[in-house]
């Protein structure tokens, strides 16, 4: 099985989120970058499906500048066979999807895995865009995946339950929690990652369809009203009369 895993390089989940250039750009000063947690689940699933590379190959791909290479090396250390970096800033989801399609369109991947969304821009668009541009099925928010021969059985999250879907490969999957247990790189993996191929590819011309104009901090919440534990009736009364939520 030939698998492509799309990787996003994102600020660590504990990062303080601030902005520079008159609130038009993320301030990456002192920020640690990681593999997007959902993409890490996608990669972990790819490793399971190929039996750690014995039954296939795993390529990881990202659209980013040279600073993203540490994250790609980490993906190689966890178990990918080779990495591809498309040398460009990721301008928007449409731009990124088209770059990946340009690379993937003639390579016959059986499976393309992405995370359900990145934890920085949270667009959640990539799986659907890739599916449409490559004219193959896509399933977003996938919490279970099994592949037997050429058929994938997919568990998709729905409100208040789940849906079991079957499809023939190739398919694009947006990985969510539950699809796999995250894998950790061991020393052998880290040593091996240094010599695995990491190709740098020039980007193609695509006009983005959206632009982020400005960022702002979320509204500050008011201060807490503390209620004594012997006075729970007051809480119920406040929730009913003041907050009007019960």
């Amino acid at each position, binding site marked *: 099985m030939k698998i492509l895993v799309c990787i996003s390089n994102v600020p660590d989940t504990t990062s303080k989120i601030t902005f520079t250039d008159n609130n038009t750009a993320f301030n990456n000063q002192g920020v640690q970058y990681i593999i997007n947690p*959902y993409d890490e689940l996608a990669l972990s699933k790819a490793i399971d499906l190929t039996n750690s590379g014995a039954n296939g190959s795993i390529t990881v791909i990202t659209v980013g500048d040279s600073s993203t290479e540490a994250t790609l090396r980490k993906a190689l250390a966890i178990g990918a066979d080779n990495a591809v970096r498309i040398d460009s800033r990721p301008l928007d989801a449409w731009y990124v999807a088209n770059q990946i399609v340009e690379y993937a369109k003639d390579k016959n991947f059986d499976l393309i895995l992405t995370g359900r969304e990145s934890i920085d821009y*949270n667009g959640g*668009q990539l799986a*659907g865009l890739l599916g449409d541009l490559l004219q*193959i099925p896509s399933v977003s928010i996938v919490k279970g995946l099994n592949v037997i021969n050429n058929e994938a059985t997919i568990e998709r999250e729905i*409100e208040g339950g789940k849906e079991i*879907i079957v499809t023939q490969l190739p398919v694009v999957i947006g990985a969510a929690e539950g699809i796999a247990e995250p894998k950790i790189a061991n020393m052998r993996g880290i040593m091996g990652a240094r010599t695995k191929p990491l190709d740098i590819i020039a980007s193609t011309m695509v006009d983005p369809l959206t632009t982020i104009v400005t960022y702002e901090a979320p509204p500050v919440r008011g201060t807490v009203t503390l209620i004594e*534990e012997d006075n729970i009736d007051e809480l119920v009364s406040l*929730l009913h009369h003041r907050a009007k939520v*019960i």
Partner: protein
Amino acid sequence: MSVLIYIENTDGVLKKSAFEAASYGKEIADSLQCDTVAVSIGNVTTHELEKLGNYGVKKVINITNDDLKTFVNQAYAAVITDVATKENAQVIIFTNSFTAKGLAPRVASKLKAGFVSGAISIPVITENSFQVKRTAFSNKAIATVSIQSDIKVITINPNAFAAKEVEGHAEIVNFEPSLESKDFGTMVKEIIRNTDKISLPDAEIVISAGRGLKGPENWGMIEELAQLLEAATACSKPVSDAGWRPHSEHVGQTGIVISPNLYIAIGISGAIQHLAGVSSSKTIVVINKDPEAPFFKVADYGIVGDAFVIVPKLIAAIKAHQGN
């Protein structure tokens, strides 16, 4: 020209979020001086669809084709794109549901439309610009996004906009789509619903608990409180990681992001990743024995104390309140 709204239903009943999307679309249509058109796929009665007229929808394109009884992402995307083209839609609105997360990007791609997911405001539209706010960095920031393409696709979060009733009547137009076999690449084999539970992303009240509950065997009082308030249950990441509760209940940065009217957090300290998932809730109540728990900083109401003492008291107090 029109604003098109994709209307979701559950077993033939329109979701509450469908009316929210209709009202959101109506506001955009008013500023663009055009009509609001809805498209519904599935077995929904005319009577049910007519309700949309009270939320500003002028026309409902009703598709009841048997081949589209269950969700087929590619075929649904093709049908909605077809309707959008016929109705000359400038803006297409979806609710940011699990289904739309798969569907909206495919529709956007077909129309080469700029797509903003999880919008939190009505777009600001001028002659040369179309800007809309959405959350970014997992609720730790708000981004204003400009869409440059002629056609725009937007998904809005459930509960983020109140549905507004207006005087009006919706004309129901049955539509027979032309389907292509290449769009039936996926097949739904089975749908499994937790029928006794309120769906978490749609819930107006959410009762959430963390490691402070000490073990899965102690969730009985959480379930009881949830049932009493017709609320959904949720949990923190350590709880779902430990297998005490299913992943589908995990709210936070790497789980589900929610914005209910009332979020009650019990025995959850409020790590930054958890707060990211719930901080846009309208009212937050925190119950925690540690007065220094970071969750109190974003709470509206707080009780410092032992959950095992407070939750039963809260249940009794709510029962007394409901009895009145």
